């Protein structure tokens, strides 16, 4: 009985840690596309990086690179979390 309870406890702690990682990454996802690429695009376009205006670059290139980084970081972080909580396969 005690064992079961402990397992329940560790499962909900695992789930909370997972949600925390998700929330952080989704925030970055939102900022890189919706904020930098859409909402603040005019303001950012006043700055340049070579031939690119920064806002335009985020909308057509940068956001996609950020998406890739998000997923590969998530894969790495979750593999680690799974091991920490002993729920890996």
């Amino acid at each position: 009985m005690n064992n079961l309870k402990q397992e329940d406890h560790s499962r909900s702690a695992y789930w909370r840690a997972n949600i925390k990682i998700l929330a952080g990454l989704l925030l970055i996802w939102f900022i890189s596309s919706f904020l930098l690429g859409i909402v603040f695009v005019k303001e950012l376009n006043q700055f340049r990086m070579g031939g690119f205006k920064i806002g335009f670059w985020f909308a057509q290139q940068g956001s996609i690179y950020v998406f890739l980084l998000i997923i590969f970081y998530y894969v790495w972080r979750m593999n680690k979390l799974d091991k920490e909580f002993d729920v890996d396969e």
Partner: protein
Amino acid sequence: MDILTWTYFIVGLTFTLYIGIAIKTRASSTKEFYIAGGGVSPLANGIATAADWMSAASFISMAGLISFMGYDGSVYLMGWTGGYVLLALLLAPYLRKFGKYTVPDFVGDRYYSQTARLVAVVAAIFISFTYVAGQMRGVGIVFSRFLEVDINTGVVIGMIIVVFYAVLGGMKGITYTQVAQYCVLIFAYMVPAIFISLQLTGNPIPQLGFGGTLNDGTYLLDKVDGLLTELGFMAYTSGSKEVIDMFFITAALMVGTAGLPHVIVRFFTVPKVKDARKSAGYALLFIAILYTTAPAVGVFGIYNMITNINGQKIESLPTWVQNWQKTGLITIEDKNKDGMILYQKDKVKNELTIDKDIMVLANPEIAGLPNWVVALVASGGLAAALSTAAGLLLVISTAISRDLLKNALAPNISEKSELLYARMAAIFAVIVAGYFGVNPPGFVAEVVAFAFGLAAASFFPVIIMGIFSKRMNKEGAIAGMIIGLIFTLGYLIYFKFMNPELNNKEHWWFGISPEGIGTLGMILNFVVSIIISKFTPPPPKHIQDLVEEIRIPRGATSAIIH
């Protein structure tokens, strides 16, 4: 060799390859037919997902669409890639752990309800059919332009090829042909892009050439901004859409991507939960190669068009312009009879019309590349259309044989007859899709864009809440799906079919165009489900345990069949 011979040769070669793979990988059980036996490596699944995802429209039309929309075209770039973040983080690992074969499987089991399952089946079939009709049409168009056969003959040839590997191989056959198709299509896309980038900017990497300088030292993007404003158009790097509309369209495309059944189902095919996560990363990587190149191709294309055609004497046009005039994709009409071509925003004065598809199709000729590259682009377009069509047809056949027959109407059929029904359903689906390819209803193009809105407003919320809320019950989920679907469909039908003359900023709700309304439909779905579920009984204990179970990676049933 001339272009036509090369095209027959390369298309013939790639088709032989696809058929060869299909014969080698044919399915022998329902599990192999539905989810390729569950033993696909994350890398192979990532490549297959990318091919599945990138349709004829991505390959042929997207770059051109962006070159005419400029910054506004960013909705497609962000929308069709950002959805993979949602898939990887919120859906793929949990659905893999759930371990069944289809999206309606999940909806029906999680919401312990045949009604929920049926709503999901109808939505899956509807979304996939609207999408697949466009693909078959795309196959027909590529055939007619490059192989000089009739469009309808092209559709029929495409149907025969798809029947062959979808019906025989099921998911298993499709997966490995898609891997081959990805290689063909990405090679065909990148070769001309790299050469054009090199010619214009001196940089072989299109993503960098995009921000590079021309021979005269000005930045390409500044030059194009200047050329377009001179002709009366918007500057390339600034847009004309309202911020709220950009926001809602991007969100609808992202969420819709994550809710499309033919994409979700690919993540059932990998062995483990962690493979599902990794596989989503690979999928986005392979998609991003094309999606970060497309906006560069778009800007190279518009620059080449303007500088090669505008202000030129009609008799001294380059040969590729004359070649494409024959196909009707470039039309020139000397309205003021001065023997020169004038490209202008003003429709009365404008003498040049360019079809968006030309930006990709004519690239090899603009860059002066050898004939085999032109042929390669044709086979790339076919690979993109066929791979997407096959993935969609599989969803339709699975929805019929498994969700409708096995799980609802005739639960006692044997595995052997289920497999037979799945194959018959696939043939049926190909024939219907082919019919729509030959006789395209006028609204196919419109409807394909709707598929995203509908997926966003129906599947995405029920799946998310099915995983992240233990309290969500069948009453909430069914009400949410139905209201989300009806609202989104109603708005689309109202503005696109009933009152197309009212389809403008002044009449849209909150300035949201029909393309972006799926986002509002999704929000409505969430709100309705949550409210209804508060007033109705919680799901039974075994369902709450199921939710508990899919949240933990360990113990994913080994799906590999030896």
